[in-house]
């Protein structure tokens, strides 16, 4: 069924059907514990095609990439490259089959030379009896970089390059193996404007040479600039494949969000007028002259592209990041807390973005984690009131409907959605006046997403909780917020309310 739709729509769209299928993946499936990251996905990439893999966070794009690049073995499914069976067991076996990937994260050795980074894992090609022929290595790197139009000295130490150039070196590494299939995961997120141009030019050249490219990016206009085909995924499943020329940005985002989220409507409500948070001219590393306000019971979203400075603003308000100048007022009174403990004592809570690193201790129980932020509240002198902790854990598990046998279950035994609920419970139970949420539904299923939205609305409505949220999920920002503040290069670039909150308005202000 799926195969038919995929092929037919492509032929209908007038895509050179003569080009052979370069990479085919059929019936791919992968689960992590109870979470199905990818369910029954088919994907066909033709020579000279640039296919954009689109979907919201958590749609399964990165799992697909990891499977294609040999880093993750699928539970089921079959793959071929240029007609031959393709069953990679490691990144190097994928490269040997002609599939190379550039990761979203940085994969570099900062303390060795650019040339060694380019030919990482292939140094034996430049050695004789184990001794490296440096002259040959450097000249090979120099030739390659020149050909790709990357401006970097192969002899210089990697860490001396800008992040953008470092990313381009990773691209050079992937291209040095002359791949037939190139996988690019959010590469432009780390690239500056000039390097992004170079990348798109290279993509065009590679396509002309018959290389197939699979491209993931949140920046939709890039997809229309460089990709020929769009494949949309949602919650780990295939949605549709269309020629890029048949779609515009609005249609594509509607496909990505899907009907589910469009159906979810925020109830009409009236927000009280008494102020909770007032920020005036806040400056610090990563943001500049930021002014905004949040009223009691109001949900305000900071919207910006990755790296816009929204994360930093949220962290600064929580005392987790230095502020160089500016004023923060809570209910009209100046707040001058310098530490996180001060912020918590003043009734501020923050749900961080990186759940695993900043949010939860997965070697400990649900109860331990929920009680952690309430530690000062539960303390009787140096001792902890265990009864209070147990009550909080019970309340949190009920309120957020956390699925576990008991509050003694270890956090690491939970699914991603339940972990996120524990994290939210941990901070909501500190009884904050101001809740800072950084991507509160990152990596959770759509069902849990709605539960979280409902809870946010309930708490802001019933408890008059002021919520300031940063989110990279555009649909979430549009549907949940009373007010949206867009952030660009660390500065406020627009404030939108009511009907003015539209995707086009926000994107224009964010870019």
């Amino acid at each position, binding site marked *: 069924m799926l195969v038919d739709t995929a092929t037919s729509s492509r032929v209908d769209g007038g895509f050179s059907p003569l080009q052979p299928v370069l990479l085919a993946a059929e019936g791919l499936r992968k689960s992590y514990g109870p979470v199905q990251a990818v369910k029954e996905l088919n994907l066909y990439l033709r020579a000279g095609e640039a296919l954009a893999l689109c979907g919201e966070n958590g749609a399964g794009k990165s799992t697909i990439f990891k499977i294609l690049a040999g880093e993750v073995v699928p539970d089921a499914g079959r793959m071929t490259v240029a007609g031959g069976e393709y069953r990679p067991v490691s990144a190097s076996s994928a490269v040997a089959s002609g599939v190379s990937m550039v990761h979203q994260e940085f994969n570099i050795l900062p303390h060795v030379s650019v040339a060694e980074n380019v030919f990482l894992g292939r140094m034996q090609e430049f050695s004789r009896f184990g001794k490296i022929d440096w002259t040959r290595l450097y000249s090979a790197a120099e030739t390659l970089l020149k050909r790709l139009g990357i401006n970097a000295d192969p002899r210089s130490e990697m860490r001396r390059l800008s992040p953008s150039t470092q990313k381009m070196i990773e691209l050079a590494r992937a291209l040095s193996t002359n791949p037939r299939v190139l996988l690019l995961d959010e590469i432009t997120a780390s690239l500056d404007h000039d390097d992004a141009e170079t990348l798109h030019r290279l993509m065009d050249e590679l396509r002309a040479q018959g290389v197939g490219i699979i491209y993931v990016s949140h920046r939709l206009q890039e997809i229309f600039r460089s990709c020929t085909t769009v494949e949309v995924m949602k919650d780990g499943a295939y949605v549709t494949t269309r020629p890029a020329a048949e779609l515009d940005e609005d249609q594509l985002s509607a496909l990505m969000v899907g009907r589910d989220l469009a159906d979810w409507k925020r109830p009409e409500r009236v927000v009280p007028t008494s102020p909770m948070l007032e920020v005036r001219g806040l400056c610090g590393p990563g943001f500049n002259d930021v002014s905004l306000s949040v009223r009691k019971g109001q949900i305000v979203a900071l919207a910006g592209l990755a790296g816009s400075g929204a994360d930093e603003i949220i962290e600064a308000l929580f005392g987790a990041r230095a502020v160089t100048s500016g004023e923060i007022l809570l209910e009209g009174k100046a707040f001058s807390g310098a530490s996180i403990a001060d912020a918590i004592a003043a009734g501020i809570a923050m749900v961080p973005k990186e759940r695993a690193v900043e949010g939860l201790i997965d070697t*400990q129980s649900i109860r331990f984690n929920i009680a952690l932020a309430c530690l000062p509240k539960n303390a009787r002198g140096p001792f902890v009131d265990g009864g209070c902790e147990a009550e909080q854990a019970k309340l949190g598990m009920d309120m957020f409907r956390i699925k576990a046998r008991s509050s003694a279950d270890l956090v690491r035994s939970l699914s991603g959605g339940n972990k996120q609920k524990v994290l939210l419970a941990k901070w909501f139970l500190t009884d904050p006046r101001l809740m800072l949420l950084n991507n509160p539904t990152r990596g959770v299923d759509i069902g849990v997403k709605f539960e979280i939205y409902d809870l946010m609305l309930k708490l802001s409505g019933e408890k008059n909780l002021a919520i300031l949220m940063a989110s990279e999920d555009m649909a979430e920002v549009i549907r949940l917020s009373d007010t949206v503040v867009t952030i660009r290069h660390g500065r406020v670039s627009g404030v939108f309310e009511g009907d003015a909150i539209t995707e086009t308005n926000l994107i224009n202000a964010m870019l």
Partner: protein
Amino acid sequence: MSQNTTTSGATPAALSIESLRTYFPLLVLVIVCIGFAIFSDQFFSIRNLETVLRQTAVLSIAAMGATFVILMASIDLSVGAVVGLSAVIVAYFMQSIGIVAVPSGLLVGAVLGTVVGTVYAKLKVPSFIATLGLMVAGHGLMLHITQGRPIMIRDETMRWIGSGTIAGIPAIVLIALVAFAIAYFVQHHTVLGRSIVAVGGGEVVAQRSGIKVERIKITTFALAGLYSGLGGIVLASRMGAGSPTAGSGLELDVIAAVVIGGTPLTGGMGGVAGTMIGALIIAILSNGLNLAGVSSYSQLIIKGLVLIAAVIISIDRKKIGIIK
């Protein structure tokens, strides 16, 4: 909905393995005891059990402090040296002021712990290096104070602590039990205990939860020093002297006891109850092997293998990506 059913379907198996791992050290202890009881009829005599418990005392006291350090995902190599220094200093002052010299051992431990903790937390020297330095310097300091000869303890009260009993139970065993009870209470019922586990489980999480991480690190090393100081006092009372080599090599037994007891070197889980069992396993292993007539050379080999085997069986390799 489907997620719900899969979760409830998958968890019972996970529970049984998870809980088995928790009780694994206890299981080993029982097996080791049964094994030695078969090999030697002296093993389960009252006299021998008393010997075992006496032998466990110093190790278990020092291991209580080390458990907190390892729970915090740091390491303390200076345990042996601080125990030894405490023993030597108590013996040294006892020559002139008698039994009132006892608290000097605790003071030495707490001060050294605070210093090494500050070097670690504030100057950002890895705990491995900071405590390695203290270990080397500490042994040198001991040689200075003793001039290479044991300082004899003649104080009657001190000698009684080392060999006397209360209601049939050796005094040092009672001290070890009280030390354990306090450690257990600190771990489970105090803000400090929660914070130590949080720092070990995820330093950034702890910091983001409002815990003052540096302060916790220093306090934990001070607490560990205090326990080592107490261990030194007990060691001095048992030996009746402050020996220039007292406590040397103890840190390795201590780390083995903590790890066998179920606290991984990566911290964040486990605790003092497991360590108590780990310490008993190590003491019983030496005692039983002695009774069974195994040479002290072979005993070292067996102890090393037991340490590695305990970790192989008790960790869940599926959840570990990169190990260093």
